[in-house]
């Protein structure tokens, strides 16, 4: 009966109920959009970051990530890669060799980071070809070709067709040096990388550093980024090699991941601010409603309704409005997020996040867009109803019934 009274009470002052519900619906939709845009942005950044750089999972020789070294190599990368490829949900893999050296074009020299890539695999795994903005991609067989970063080309005043001389040290202690023809200019979206990177065919890099058949890194792409943790575990089990470290992108790019998480926490604060504003509005209308029905609560108490039942009557009334608002808000939230996931928001200028450049922000429609606003709206509604509910429950019947 208490529920019945609460339900019918919501229809008594229709305009006030609609206004209260509207505040909750708008709050829900705003929260949903904030989460959708935030998840969309971070999803886009993570996708770009992992696809262009780290991959979803990496395999290294034990301790390489903490202290990279030319000598910490995976000795049989092809066999390891083949085992990884046979793991469920693995889409592609590729291998890389890393080394530092001095790059010279004509009279100009600068420090370079040499990245030896397995061209065919790198294209499949990280869309390497998309990064080449000028010239061509490296040949699929070793041909002493180089693709250099856009910033590096500027520093060295290098153009397509120029020769770049690399001087470094081989793994056997010898002086490593060779000449490569620049066939392409690459842009990764990360300016720091683009100022130093020089891509070579992996066999050319292995020859330069005297690392025949060895690699520093195996990069794995999974078919869905949400499965990274499971696939990481599966690869570890399959490889069963204590000398190899298998790490998801969150571990590989620790500082990037932490910065992103901190940023997301900042978003959570803004969500609570939205709900606080909505809650204050709702509190006002609920208090008005309790004040208006003081006499009725007095009568209910007089005829034997317990204080706790009066308390639940007020809470139920707000919860009923909140439930209806959540349903409408969910429809609205999904619709808005869906529209923004198609059309997005285009920034007047490109923005950079963690070295990644973004021009358009797309929303994402996911469960979080519904569940978090629903929980937030419901918790806010219940909290907001507590004070008026206690006030109603403590009403003295005789005094309340003197109220007009």
């Amino acid at each position, binding site marked *: *009966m208490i529920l019945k009274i609460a339900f019918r*009470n919501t229809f008594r002052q229709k305009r006030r109920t609609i206004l209260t519900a509207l505040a909750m619906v708008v709050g829900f939709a705003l929260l949903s959009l904030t989460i959708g845009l935030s998840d969309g942005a971070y999803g886009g950044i993570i996708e770009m970051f992992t696809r262009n750089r780290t991959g979803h999972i990496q395999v290294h020789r034990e301790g390489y990530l903490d202290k990279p070294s030319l000598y910490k190599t995976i000795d049989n990368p092809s066999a390891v890669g083949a085992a990884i490829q046979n793991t469920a949900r693995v889409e592609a893999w590729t291998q890389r060799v890393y080394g530092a050296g001095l790059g010279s074009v004509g009279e100009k020299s600068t420090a370079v980071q040499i990245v030896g890539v397995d061209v065919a695999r790198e294209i499949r795994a990280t869309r390497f070809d998309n990064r080449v903005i000028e010239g061509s991609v490296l040949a699929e067989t070793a041909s002493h070709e180089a693709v250099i970063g856009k910033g590096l080309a500027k520093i060295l005043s290098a153009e397509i067709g120029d020769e770049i001389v690399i001087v470094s040290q081989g793994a056997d202690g010898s002086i490593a040096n060779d000449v490569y023809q620049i066939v392409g200019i690459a842009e990764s979206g990360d300016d720091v990388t683009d100022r130093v990177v020089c891509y070579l065919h992996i066999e050319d890099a292995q020859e330069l550093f005297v690392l025949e058949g060895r690699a520093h890194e195996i990069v794995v792409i999974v078919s869905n980024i949400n499965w990274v943790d499971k696939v990481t575990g599966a690869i570890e089990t399959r490889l069963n090699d204590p000398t190899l470290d298998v790490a998801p992108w969150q571990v590989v790019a620790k500082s990037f991941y932490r910065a992103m998480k901190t940023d997301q926490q900042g978003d959570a604060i803004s969500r609570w601010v939205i709900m606080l504003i909505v809650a204050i509005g709702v509190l006002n209308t609920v208090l008005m409603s309790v004040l208006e029905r003081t006499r009725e609560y007095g009568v209910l108490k007089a*005829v*034997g*309704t*317990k204080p706790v039942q009066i308390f639940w009557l007020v809470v139920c009334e707000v919860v009923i409005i909140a439930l209806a608002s959540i349903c409408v808000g969910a429809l609205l939230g999904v619709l808005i997020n869906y529209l923004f996931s198609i059309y997005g928001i285009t920034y007047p200028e490109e923005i950079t996040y963690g070295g990644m450049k973004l021009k358009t922000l797309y929303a994402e429609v996911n469960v979080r867009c519904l569940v978090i606003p629903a929980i937030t709206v419901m918790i806010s509604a219940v909290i907001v109803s507590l004070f008026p509910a206690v006030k109603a429950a403590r009403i003295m*019947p005789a005094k309340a019934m003197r109220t007009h």
Partner: protein
Amino acid sequence: MEQVQKTDVIVTAGVTKVYEADGVPVNALNGIDLTIRSGEFTALVGPSGSGKTTFLNIISGLDSPTAGSVWLAGKVLSEMSGNELSDFRRDNIGFVFQAYNLIPVLTVEENVEYIMLLAGVPKAERHDRVIGMLGAVGLEGVAERTPTQLSGGQQQRVAIARAMVSEPQIILADEPTANLDSKTGADLLEMMRRLNAETGMTFIFSTHDPMVMEGATRLITLRDGRIDTDERR
């Protein structure tokens, strides 16, 4: 204070109530000692401000006295918690208010069955008793209406049905005929007298209505918060 007898349903001893009105203390009741016996049909009369409503509120536990004690059906009201008082009122007292005080969002049937629902009476029994009680107060055929669809007299009948349906020991009525025309008032009074005679329920009214005063078996006059006269007929 003399010994409380089994037949005494209400006993008050030195009941005093002081209100603050604009910071000034007002003595609404000044040490009332009174015993009401089971089955009495009592009218509380007196001029406005004499303390009739305050006294009814205090003997029903709707308000608390500033000093003094109230025994109701053998219980000391001041010793009960809020929940105990609610249960006690639900099980022992039926209220009829001057302004009817029905729950506007409930139908007539729901208003009448509300107290039985709180008491956990089974649905079928509730329904039968509601229909029977609505028949007894002459309200057949209006069970599905809401209070706003009824006349003042009909609303007061619903209030009486609500007060009596759970068969409480005591019915407290605050000016029950004040908002009714004389014919409706007379009908209601007749109905309450009949129920009093048939069930032995104790009725206490506050009233200005000479017709109600005439029908009472005991007439208590209050003046300035004190019992001025107490006449049994």
